[in-house]
């Protein structure tokens, strides 16, 4: 059973943290959402969501390296925790269960 529920945007961000692995930090996630999902997103929204996910224990963070284009500021790299992974899986299963209930339309 899923005890906590994630919003749609939270789920997207969590998925991207899982997908980007070593490269999962605020600006990169925002870029991915913009380029892959073709969706306008605000940086602050991504940050707030990341903090919230961290509060829930679904991701954890460490400081990564600094680059010149970042004005010497370090990145905060997020990695998904096993709780986060379990949550993603549980959500996916739930979706599939629901999808199975939808009468399959034949594509003609």
């Amino acid at each position, binding site marked *: 059973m899923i005890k906590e529920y994630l919003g749609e945007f939270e789920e997207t961000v969590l998925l991207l943290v899982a997908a980007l692995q070593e490269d999962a930090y605020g600006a990169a996630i925002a870029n991915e959402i913009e380029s892959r999902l073709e969706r306008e997103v*605000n*940086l602050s929204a991504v*940050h707030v969501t990341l*903090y*919230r996910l961290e509060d829930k224990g679904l991701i954890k963070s460490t400081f990564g390296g600094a680059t010149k*284009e970042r004005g010497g*500021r*370090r990145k905060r790299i997020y990695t998904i925790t096993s709780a986060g992974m379990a949550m993603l899986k549980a959500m996916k299963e739930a979706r599939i269960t629901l999808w199975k209930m939808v009468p399959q339309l034949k594509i003609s």
Partner: protein
Amino acid sequence: MENARAIRLLRWFCPQHLREEIEGDLLQRYERDLKKYGEKRARKKLLWNVIRFCRPGIVLRHKPNFSRNNFYMLSNYFKVASRIMIRNKAYSFINISGLAFGITGAALLFLWISHEFSYDQFHADKHRIYKAWNRALENGQINCWDVTPRILAPTLQEEFSPVEAAISYAQWESKHLFIVGETRLLKTSGAFADPGLLTMFSFPMLNGNPAKAFENPNSIVLTESFAKQLFGDEKAFGETLTISQSGYSFEFIITGILKDLPSNTSFKFEYLIPFQFLESLGEKYTHWGNNSVATYVKLKEGNSLETFNDQIKDIVRKHYADGQHIEIFLYPLTKMRLYSRFENGIPAGGRIEIIRMLGILGICLVVIACINFINLSTARAQRRSKEVAIRKVTGAFRHSLVMQFLCESVLIAVGAGVLSILAVYLLLPFFNKLIGQHLVFSFGNLTSWGIALGFVLLIGLLAGSYPALYLSSFRPMGILKNSGIATSGKNTLRSLLVVFQFGFAVMLIISAMVIYKQIDFLQNREAGYSKDNLIYIPLTGDLEKNYLAFKNELMQREVAVSVTKTSAPITEQWSSTNSIEWSGKHPEERTDFERIFMDDRPSATFGLNIVMGRDFDLQQFPNDSSAAILNETALKVMNLDNPIGEIIDDDGREWRIIGVVKDFVFTSPFRNIEPIIIFGGKARWAFNEIYIKLNPVNDVRKSLSALNELTKKYNPEYPFEYHFADVEYAHKFANLKTTLLITTIFTSIAIFIASLGLLGLSTYLIEARVKEIGIRKVLGGSVLSIMKLLSMSSLKPIVLGIIVFSPLTWLSMNWWLNSYAHRITLSVWIFLVAGMALILIALLTIGVQTYRAANTNPVNSLRNE
């Protein structure tokens, strides 16, 4: 750089632990946007992105700052602050005592103000209770007064459905002799009221049922302490007592004991008697022209005052043919104390104006004290600059320095606050006596402690914030290299603050002087009658029928030189009328004449000057009992060419004018002379007092004991009571004298605080100029010229303050004086004297310092260079 500004904005609201990554991400985005859109748009986007970060999800992520480190720092700040305070004893003393004086003064004033605001606010239905007022056009002016006909309350109750209850209430100060067993007390502190009074207002009742207390006309309700006076420790409730008045005695049953009335109510009575009692004696007051009682009305829930006032406007017109010019309106009970002055029919403030002045006074006292703190702290910058520099070099952040300085100021404020609470506690009884109020500081009440603490902290922060920001802004490089900051005596803010301080002080000095002059002027006003050896006693009990014998014996034994019965003390108003008729009276004329009744030889007893005709003299002219004497003003109003022998008509009674006396001060020395008619002795019911001109040959004490003996003989039932006319006259000034005393006290406090500040300030300013003085002396400057130089720089803002604030004072004092019919005119010399006095005080304050500074050997101040 624009970007730096955006980042600074971010840092302002963003929690520290999130700052680095967010900044990094923002800059990364900026770099991307720079390539994509060019610099201008990228910048805009950056700023916009920063602003978007100002959202609860980010801002509320501030971690609470109570880490152990912060606690250590805070305790360290306090430790350092207390060390600094102990090291600079004089500085701490000046600061703490100045603030303590200011806070104490302000606290006393604010206790007073809050007490004033609490008047009659404790009644449960206060928002539905109103007092009825009259509004009438008289001689071209709309007058308002709150004394109404007795018949008004029952009529309102009967004819208007929105009225829940309407009652009459009257305090006539009738002389009632209370008899319970052996106890006899003469009281005037009673009131007549309708039974509804006890249920309309929320006076707590200890015994008895408020709704049923006055079912019987012969019932009486006492206050707790009055019951104790009568019955001692025995139970009073349900007992009977006897009241005797003018030779009649009545039995009353005590049907209720009220808790003593709180000090914050406008009602002042010790016992209540129902109107039904008076009316059971036969007399019903149904005359609409006789304004004699106060009327209180409680409206039913949900009725608006405006619509109801519209409904009742014509009530007098409907019932009273002669009252076509009178309108009745209701005015809220909650405004009775502070907002009950009407000017031309429109509410025009009232006591609230005094309260506002007190509030301003309180705030100014605190501000003066805070200014001291600010001035002294900034002046001390020189001394603290090295400390600041060292702290900064060793890595102190600016905010931690600010914190440290704030801790110092809070510590000083708390010290002053503790002293003030102590002082308020000790001074409150004296202050209460002074202002004739009953203020309490509830020490058991958490809210008042909370307010006190909040107030003290606020003062600490307000006074401390400017010095903290100023002192923490020093750049360590300059200070350590040049051995000090460049302080000169020129600090605009500091000078401005001194201008304000001394401006306020000069305002207070002038006010005190003007009030003093005004009192002096009024006290020396020609009274028009002789108060020496003049005494009056109440005409009570058997004295009425034994009056002639009593008078004869007084004269025979040469205790008195002249004795006259009067309707009221000459210092009290008793009755007035605008319905006197005389030959040739203009039909529109509605001037009010004061009525007073005197039986025989008034000018002999009072020493009035007869300018026309003659005095009442019953021995020669028994007909004088239906005669009348006018004062000069009354004669002027009547405009009679030959007044002697003219007949005037007062509501159906005819009187013959036999004399005119010179104007004399009646009721109050503050008022203009009103037209007065002295009526003769025909109206037997009118007399209440006996004025006795004692024989000046005798010792007053001997005369009094003779008088005591005689009243005992002719009026054995009543205790002996007497008043000196001059004492009663002087009583009229009690209020004004209180004002003077309060102004003087607060003036002294303000001057003291300001001088304290000046002393501290000049000390530091001189210290900063020690080298300059040394060089001047080496180059041949004389002690006198150096003293002049130093004094001038301190005096300049003070003189400016005096010049700027004097016109303000002139306006406000003129406004105050305008409330007096007899007033002094403001003269320039008051301002000059006040200004000179203040400058002198200032010179004395800084004199020792400047003298010492000017006298120091330049070697001592210059050898360290």
